[in-house]
Structure formats: C-alpha cells, structure tokens
C-alpha cells in the first residue's frame, strides 16, 4: 500500500468554511475515481466533522481547523480533522446518536453519520487542548483512472 498523495489545509473556524472543506477534500480524492455515492459519503462526513469544530470545539469563536487527507494506491483514504478548542470530556457520550450539548436545531447525529458513512472512525480529545477525528474509507478500485505509478 503506497501513498499516492497528501494534503493539509488550515482555515479559520467560520461556518462558511464547512462547504470549502468538503469541496476541497472531495476534489482531492478524485484520482481514486470514487462513485457519486462514495464521494457524497466523504463530503457528508467531512462536513459533520468540520461543523463539530465550529460549533463545539471553538463554540463559534475564532480558531484554526486543520484537515489532513491522504490517499493510497489500494483505494484507502485517511482524513484527519482537528481543532485546538475546548475538547470533549466524555467521548462515548458525545458519540451517542441524538446526544447534543447544544440541543435545539442540532440533531446530535454528527458522529453517527461519520460512523455510518465512513469505514473507520477514531476520536481523540483532551479537554482545553482540542479534538482530532480520523476517518478512513476504502474506495473500490474499478480499474479506471489509474495513477501513473500503477500503469505499466
């Protein structure tokens, strides 16, 4: 399994960047030739993770969100999204579907969506230091749009 490409983005914790982040990641993974559904899954998961940074990590305040993405020649995608915000005290509770600390307009489904739409999800957090979410997905290789390295 060889790394094909890697990128890191840093941007301020403004809600307008939720769209920017998912669009950028979706463009970055295109060489793996994902289906529309796979691409939509990735965009949705990235959107959830970045929204969590904006709402919970920085509680609508100023901060930097970092997105790192790696793609591998076997179709594996690893996306790490982190903030240096307030952190999560109780990770299992935060990951429970329908649990939300802010209530009202938030469905409390962010982590459930990430879990369901991606193949692997890992959350690490330290109170007052920040949170990192690492997600993985395998794109089924269909033999089209191979990278240079794969062509004989």
């Amino acid at each position: 399994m060889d790394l094909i490409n890697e990128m890191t983005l840093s941007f301020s914790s403004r809600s307008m960047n939720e769209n920017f982040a998912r669009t950028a990641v979706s463009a970055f993974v295109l060489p793996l030739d994902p289906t529309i559904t796979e691409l939509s899954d990735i965009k949705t998961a990235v959107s959830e993770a970045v929204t969590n940074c904006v709402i919970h990590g920085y509680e609508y305040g100023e901060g930097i969100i970092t997105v790192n993405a790696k793609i591998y020649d076997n179709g594996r995608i690893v996306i790490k999204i982190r903030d240096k915000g307030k952190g999560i005290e109780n990770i299992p509770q935060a990951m429970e579907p329908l649990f939300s600390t802010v209530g009202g307009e938030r469905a409390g489904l962010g982590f459930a969506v990430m879990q369901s739409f991606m193949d692997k999800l890992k959350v690490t957090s330290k109170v007052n230091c920040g949170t990192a979410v690492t997600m993985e997905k395998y794109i089924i290789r269909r033999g089209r749009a191979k990278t240079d390295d794969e062509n004989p």
Partner: protein
Amino acid sequence: MNVKLTFEKNTLTVQLSGEIDHHSARGIRQAVDADIEKYRPKTLVLDFGRVKFMDSSGIGLIMGRYRMMKIAGGVVRIDHVPQHLERLIALSGVRQITE
C-alpha cells in the same frame, strides 16, 4: 437563499435547493419560521427534490420545524427526497415524525 416559499390552502410549501449544511441552514430556518408565524399553516411541506447536498444540519432543520408545527397542532411532510439523501433520512428516523 436556497429556499422558495408558497402558501396555499393551509399548506406552507418550502422548496429547498442547493446545499444544506450548518452554515446555510440558518437562513433557511429564519425564512421558514417567519412564514410559519405569518400564515400559521396546518401542514408544512419540506420539498427536498432540488437539494444537491445535505448533512445532519438538514435533519436538525426538519426536527426543529416538527417541534414548532406540533405545538401549533400542525404536521410536517417531507417530499421528493432524492436517492442520495435516503440513507441520511433513514439513519435519522425523521420518517417517524413526518407524514
């Protein structure tokens, strides 16, 4: 704004389009809530037919409007859910509270 509202026969229809995320949901919510207050509809129809992208903020939007409509004795219907949103809708369980 990604929303077009029409009121007819006690029904407020909200034609949503484009991308619904946490950022865009605020404007949609304000527009819809203003018309719910104004017209006091019996039925609120949320039409997702032209929605290209939606994350769980869209689910929050449905749940919030459901709570508003329920207090006033009304109902929420969700229409034209595109194939690509089916899994999110199913995962959320909102079908149980909408018509």
